[in-house]
């Protein structure tokens, strides 16, 4: 199916946003194959050659700025991307990257308050009381019925004090002032998202308002204030219920991914486990910000009606004042090799679905480019193999898709295939048919026509990626943050062009093995005896 639908399959997976409209795309998922700009076809080089249009600037504090001029309309789209996300979290504090992203909309010492000097001691005391209250309530829950009257009385008085402090703090709040400023000045698309790899903040507005943006965003990068913390924690819990607990696909992917990764933080849901969210403190969240939000971890991409020289001056004068931060702790955990198939099931009041995933290397490994080709051969377009075979010929699936970078791209990840069976066919039948197609990749070389199709679509998508200001800003910042260089967009295209039929056979044979795979099945509740979660007999790896 179209790129769009293909992308929407991936959209179920990982990203969380603060605004109302949430795209759940895993960053770097809809990316490698779908979005690229560069074209080998020389006839398009002049108009679509990104290399000539991107202007790059780096500040002394490490902040990277990428700019593309487009003067048709007096508007600009801006994407600020930080190389921080769920991947940086520890067990017990899961969801902290996403909660911080929500808190980043609460303002600064200047925005969102009537008087920060007076507000601050109240916020400090609220954090102290709130943290103690959380702690005592957890202890109380752990002790169960054994809680004494004395403990009960202490908790009750803490609750009263907490409610009182919240009311006092609320007196100083100017609600959602940052968003209000943007909207008054014509801002649209104000939003943010947190994924496994990255946290991103986006906005579009009339381009003569750049000084407003620079003032707001440099202030937020330097002096955020975590006001209304406990209310926002409640909002995030509602978000978790909405996306993961009440969503069959949300719960299926959460369960699948945490089964596939047992050590690496890719296994943790980006939104966090409910118990962890409810234990996050203002102090933890502030510390997370200080560790991970330095300007040296940020890329700002601006696309639209801008004058790059003026933009650089503006950004130097504002963001340039922010000191560089020390490098964050390095990521140490490496997922151990998987030594046997893992199967999990999720019961839900919904029709069945299946996800199958294989561990693989990520960006920078030549095999990763081969997976991008496999991904396209299997599921891009109506003539892709899985669609043709499962949907059209066998008529056993209602939909099928794949993704070469689940749930992120900064660390070794998974190649996944997802499908929904067409009743009365079962997930077991669909699973067997998927394995047949994976086996075929090992057995016979893909045709040169298929490889040509992959490349034609990649090149067309590169040109299409230039169409919207916000889309281009997003792609530039994404690759700068994930691959360390936006030009990865161009180099990956050339590497994909070099992938051969023999590469595909070799990679399929090496990675698509039974012991390297994880299978998750969504089963209709009360219908659990269906054969769904049993291993498929008669189909090898």
């Amino acid at each position, binding site marked *: 199916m179209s790129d769009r639908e293909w992308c929407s399959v991936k959209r179920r997976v990982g990203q969380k946003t603060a605004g109302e409209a949430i795209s759940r795309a895993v960053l770097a998922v809809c990316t490698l194959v779908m979005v690229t700009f560069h074209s080998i076809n020389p006839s398009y080089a002049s108009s679509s050659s990104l290399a000539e249009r991107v202007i790059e600037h780096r500040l002394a504090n490490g902040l990277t700025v990428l700019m593309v001029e487009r003067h048709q309309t007096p508007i600009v789209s801006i994407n600020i991307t930080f190389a921080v996300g769920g991947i940086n979290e520890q067990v017990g504090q899961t969801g902290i990257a996403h909660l911080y992203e929500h808190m980043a909309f609460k303002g600064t010492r200047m925005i969102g308050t009537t008087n920060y000097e007076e507000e601050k001691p109240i916020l400090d005391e609220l954090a102290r009381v709130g943290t103690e209250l959380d702690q005592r309530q957890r202890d109380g829950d752990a002790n169960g019925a054994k809680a004494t009257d004395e403990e009960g009385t202490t908790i009750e008085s803490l609750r009263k004090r907490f409610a009182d402090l919240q009311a006092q703090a609320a007196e100083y709040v100017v609600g959602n002032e940052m968003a209000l400023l943007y909207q008054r000045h014509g801002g649209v698309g104000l939003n943010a998202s947190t994924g496994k790899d990255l946290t991103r903040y986006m906005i579009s507005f009339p381009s003569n308002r750049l*000084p407003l943006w620079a003032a707001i965003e440099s202030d937020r990068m330097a002096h955020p204030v975590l006001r209304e913390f406990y209310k926002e924690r409640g909002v995030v819990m509602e978000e978790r219920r909405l996306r993961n607990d009440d*969503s069959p696909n949300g719960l299926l992917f959460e369960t699948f991914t945490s089964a596939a990764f047992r050590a690496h933080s890719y296994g943790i849901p980006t939104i966090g486990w409910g118990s962890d969210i409810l234990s996050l403190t203002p102090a933890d969240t502030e510390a997370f910000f200080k560790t991970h939000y330095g300007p040296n971890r940020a890329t700002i991409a601006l696309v639209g009606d801008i004058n790059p020289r003026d933009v650089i001056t503006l950004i130097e004068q504002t963001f340039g004042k922010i000191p560089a931060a020390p490098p964050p702790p390095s990521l140490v955990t490496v997922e151990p090799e998987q030594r046997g198939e893992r199967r999990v099931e999720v019961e*839900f009041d919904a029709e069945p679905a299946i996800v199958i995933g294989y561990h693989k290397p990520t960006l920078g490994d030549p095999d990763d480019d081969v997976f991008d080709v496999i991904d396209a051969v299997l599921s891009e377009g109506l003539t892709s193999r899985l669609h043709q075979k499962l949907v059209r010929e066998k008529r056993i699936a209602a939909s099928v898709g794949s993704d070469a970078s689940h749930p992120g791209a900064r660390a070794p990840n998974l190649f996944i295939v997802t499908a929904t069976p067409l009743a009365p066919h079962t997930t077991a039948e669909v699973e067997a048919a998927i394995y047949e197609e994976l086996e075929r990749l090992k057995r016979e070389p893909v045709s040169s026509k298929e490889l040509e199709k992959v490349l034609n679509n990649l090149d067309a998508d590169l040109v299409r990626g230039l169409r919207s200001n916000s889309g281009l800003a997003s792609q530039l910042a994404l690759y700068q943050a994930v691959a360390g260089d936006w030009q990865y967009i161009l180099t990956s295209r050339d590497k994909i062009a070099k992938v051969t039929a023999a590469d595909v056979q070799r990679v399929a044979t090496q990675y698509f093995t039974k012991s390297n795979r994880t299978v998750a099945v969504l089963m209709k509740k009360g219908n659990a005896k269906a054969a769904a979660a049993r291993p498929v007999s008669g189909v090898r790896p």
Partner: protein
Amino acid sequence: MKRGRADWMNMRSEVARLLGVVVLLLVSGSVAYSADLEAEDPRTMTFEPVEFSPPEPERVVLDNGLVVYLLEDHELPLVTITATMRTGSWLDPADKVGLAAMTGAVMRAGGGGGLSAEQVDAELDQFAGDVHIGIGRQSGSASLDVLSKDLDRGLEIFAGLIRSPAFEPARLELAKLQAIESIRRRQDSPGSIVSREFSKALYGADHPTARESSVDSIKRLTRQDLVAFHRHTIHPNGMLLGVTGDFTRDELLASLRKVFGDWQTGTVPELKIPDVSEADLSQSVIRFINKDTSQTHLRVGHLSIKESDPDYVALAIANDILGGSSFRSRLFNDVRTKRGLAYSVGSRLYTGMHDQGVWMMRAETKMTSTQEVIERFVANMERMRGEPVTDAELAEAKEAYVNSFVFSFASPSAIVSRLIELEYDGLPKDFLQQLRAQVIQLTKEDVLAAAKKHLRPDRLKIIAVGSGDALTKALSAFGDVKEIKLSPEG
């Protein structure tokens, strides 16, 4: 929800909802920024308004009545063609609901113009050409998106599918199986259930704007039904084409005449949707659907005005302040920011020209806060009716509308789509500019009067999806509660 129509329709609703636009902005890339950078307080910054004159598309009518809007844009080697067709599922016979949608799906999937389905798919995929065809409730839409080097061939295929679809039996059979599967999956997600049941509660389950296909109605569809539906409803004189991108006018018109010029005119169906009776409008209703969920999924609202109503602008601004403007709105601030009771909360005014609009508030919240959220809905609604909005709220809403107006003209395809949708709806081409002028003139009294007249607590329909007994109890604070039993097939 109410818009079963093509995407472009939603686009305008969206813009209109945010009331987003007014003074054409000015800005030039070479102007250095005038604000005082040392002041650094964004709250006190002011900027020049920006003059911006969007390019004017050309409108050409072919001899057979086919209307073409053209706007060249040579930045990228791409061409996009859209077709908007006066057809839709309001024409579905009562026992064959789903016919229009199925016709659109199989026009795309079933081959045409002398090519087999497989040939069409293979050729388009090979040169990365995108073709979509769909028929919604009040219009049909098709699009072609190709690299400009493939324009001629892409256009031939595109025109073949629209004019002479083959409706290959195997592809129809597959599309029917897929449609039945999606009916089976309708009850999977609480969000989908609550939207569909809310729509049915407002319009009635058999109304063209709310009715749904069933396994039986899909099974009944034959190839002959699709052929006849296509033949009777899709005509050149009922179609508006929009062409943007890297083409030249004369060559393109010649190509269009080649593929569409000898297509005979026909009788274009009249787009007429019956109004819901006053008796049904005035009834307040509380219904729940029992599903094992962690949250209550809520929709609260009633039918509303059409876009041509003289109160449209005032009501749209009232809704914007109440719950339409996300972060800035009262409902967002009250229910989400201050109380932490929901992630997604707000209100919407959906309006069109052909059926009554919908005004509604929505949220998802944990079971124990369901009653509080509904109370906040009602309280905020009453406040809109009881007292004028503040000067600051009105000024902010106006500024947001005026300063974001330029985004209605953000790209050549946005400009062309807007003109096409206005023509389709019989509205003047400067309709948005007229709205903008009205927004600027609007007073607090206008907003209050519109809220009083059009936000009606006595007519509220409350629809909730959630877990059983506790939910019934929470809802019963607002009146008599009845359960909607879902059929397993959707």
